[in-house]
């Protein structure tokens, strides 16, 4: 297990170094000078030059890359060109919204998907199965931004139960903040739950057809006893993979939902930074997301190993 861990950690580290180089070079290739963007079309050329100097944009490419990486290693992400505050501060503020939103959506999605998937699998071809399959088909097909707008229309504009969007901040109180995240979390969770429920169902059905399940039944376990004791754990592997993917997807990909609900999350930060050519922010958030994806994949791998000892043995 230790060698396995070390190997995984090394590849994690190499991925990060490669990612940082690619991200930096791609950002450099993007057209658009941050300084002239900030100063606008009537700006004095002298003032633009002064700003470029102030932002350190005149230094050579390798020097700027090394400067950035050296900063990253010390936890210093640099200073945002547009906001002129430390990038780490900006990211920290945004993560405080995006991370809880992601976890909220994942929790909702799991809470919906597990029972629905188990129900559908255990009563294959029954009315319950058909309705779960129908509902999830719809859930996958409906674009989440459209669903989000419907939620706003019903619960914010007509019923006035929720704000149409925005985030009051965690200082406003836990429930107030959670309330503001509820509609976005539902909008994010619905398609995820649908996918997850379908994976759960098919994975369970596959497992139920395996030989060891027949053995379990032959030993006298009832269908549902066999399902809970033996099948579920084995069916979890593909579900975990999907959950891991969903976490990364939601963390970075909530941008459309963040726009619909004008939540100041990580996705919107990157989007805004790209249009404003705040390249230092884009670079730093992207490398952080890469890091998150790599770490989550790593954790999912560990979870596999925990769920299925065979995987551990194979890799040793």
């Amino acid at each position: 297990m230790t060698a396995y861990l070390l190997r995984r950690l090394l590849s994690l580290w190499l991925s990060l170094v490669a990612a940082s180089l690619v991200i930096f070079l791609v950002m450099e290739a993007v057209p658009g000078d941050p300084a002239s963007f900030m100063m606008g079309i009537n700006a004095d050329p002298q003032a633009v030059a002064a700003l470029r100097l102030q932002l350190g944009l005149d230094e050579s490419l390798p020097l700027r890359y090394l400067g950035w990486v050296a900063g990253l290693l010390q936890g210093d992400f640099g200073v945002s060109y547009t906001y002129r505050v430390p990038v780490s501060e900006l990211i920290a503020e945004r993560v405080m919204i995006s991370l809880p939103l992601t976890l909220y959506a994942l929790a909702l999605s799991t809470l919906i998907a597990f029972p629905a998937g188990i129900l559908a699998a255990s009563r294959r071809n029954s009315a319950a199965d058909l309705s779960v399959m129908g509902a999830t088909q719809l859930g996958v097909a409906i674009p989440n931004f459209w669903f989000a707008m419907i939620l706003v229309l019903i619960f914010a504009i007509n019923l006035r139960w929720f704000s149409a969007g925005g985030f009051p901040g965690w200082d406003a109180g836990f429930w107030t903040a959670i309330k503001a995240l509820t509609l976005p979390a539902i909008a994010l969770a619905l398609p995820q739950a649908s996918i997850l429920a379908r994976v759960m169902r098919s994975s369970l059905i596959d497992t139920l057809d395996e030989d060891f399940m027949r053995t379990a039944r032959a030993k006298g376990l009832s269908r549902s006893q066999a399902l809970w004791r033996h099948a579920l754990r084995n069916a979890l592997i593909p579900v975990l993979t999907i959950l891991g993917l969903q976490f990364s997807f939601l963390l970075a990909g909530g941008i459309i939902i963040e726009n619909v609900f004008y939540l100041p999350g990580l996705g919107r930060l990157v989007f805004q930074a790209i249009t404003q050519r705040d390249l230092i922010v884009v670079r730093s958030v992207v490398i952080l997301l890469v890091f998150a994806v790599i770490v989550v994949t790593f954790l999912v791998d560990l979870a596999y190993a925990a769920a299925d000892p065979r995987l551990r043995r194979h890799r040793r």
Partner: protein
Amino acid sequence: MTKNPIAAAAVSILALGLALGVTPATAAGMDATIGMQLEPPNLDPTGGAAAAIDEVVYANVFEGLTRFGPDGAILPALAESWEISEDGLTYTFKLHSGVTFHDGSGFDAEDVKFSLDRARGDESTNAQKALFADIASVDVVDPTTVKITLSKPNGSFLFNLAWGDAVIVAPESADGNAANPVGTGPFKFAEWVKGDRVDLERYPDYWGAAVKLDHVTFKFISDPTAAFAAMMAGDLDAFPGYPAPENLVQFEADPRFSVIIGSSEGETILGMNNKKPPLDNILVRQAIAHAIDRQAIIDGAMFGYGTPIGTHFAPHNPAYVDLTAQSAYDPEQSKALLAEAGVSDLTLSLKLPPPSYARRGGEIIAAQLREVGITAEITNVEWAQWLDDVFKAKNFDLTIVSHTEPMDIDIYGRDDYYFQYGDPDFKAIMADLDQATDPAKRTELMQAAQTKIADDYVNAYLFQLARTGVADAKLKGLWLNSPTQANDMTGVHWEE
């Protein structure tokens, strides 16, 4: 935490109520939440060009010696009066006394000297540094008197001082203004939740007339659909630069709202690359101008909001000349002009920045140009890319952009400006305008300038951008027009 079980129960019930959506009634109508489409990158109007900076802080947090009134007139602000010498070279400003900055420090002539010298200095990152180019020296006469000497007369000097880029800052706080603005205005900065909102609160020691609002929150909502939802759900009290004109009819029909349609300083033009063949031929430019049906663009792209223009000048300005007839929609004449120029099968690039006036307008213009035999190849670009590719590298034939700076006809006198006009006769008119202080003479020169660029068909002039806003029907005092990009909250109040 709390020892009182009843209080604890009350807190829980309140929390539960909030969770279920029962919001307690807000204290009083002394606050206003204003929607804005773009978030300012920082809050220092002297260190960046973003219009969103002025939209938050202009007249609210920061003040200059003079200021724009709602109708565009130049009014006194920190200077209560001024005298101009006979030769137009010396301006002596009398300052208000008893003025303080929000950090409690006093305001006097030294601060004026500091601010103007900083703005025009070598290391200045003031985007409108050119506004101060004619200043030879700034001298403190006494704490409430400041004398500014110009190197040559400048008829627009009082106007220049009204810009957001010319606000007065204090040496103690100037460097921190980007994140923590300290001005002399009626509102002081309270909090900035990045990506979400900026909160201002009333400054109790304000030198001028007290404002009616206790708090103003500027909330940033870039998505037009989200802006609609936020207004409808009552999360916002007003959205002065409302981004989706298509929804305005719906707001008009709803008695909860008032719709505010005013004029802006935004001249929307089809910019042409005057140095690139065949656009260096005036006949071709004239042909393009005649191929365009302005009203069709206003109706199709702006849902009817906008005023047709025939030159680069705001129709609400008293010196405006209506030259739309000179480039009236006439496809036949357009074809004749192209034939006369000996141009056929013309293909031109049309580069469009993100705003809807450009993206939607561009499609319509491409269709109109096709009618006269010109193919416009549309490329959509982001702003940063537009700045690099179109504005700096001049790598374009046609582009659509709204020039939103007030009184910016002087850009036609700049040699290297993206449409590459820089005509010597036009520059002479601008030089004369700089020298002139007599209002009648100035009007005459401004009109000559408008006519000159219309005669030369420098660009095809489309329309003046309307300022479309939505507000709670009880919220009064918002600006109708936008003579500069500002959300001046000093006169805003609630009415029962």
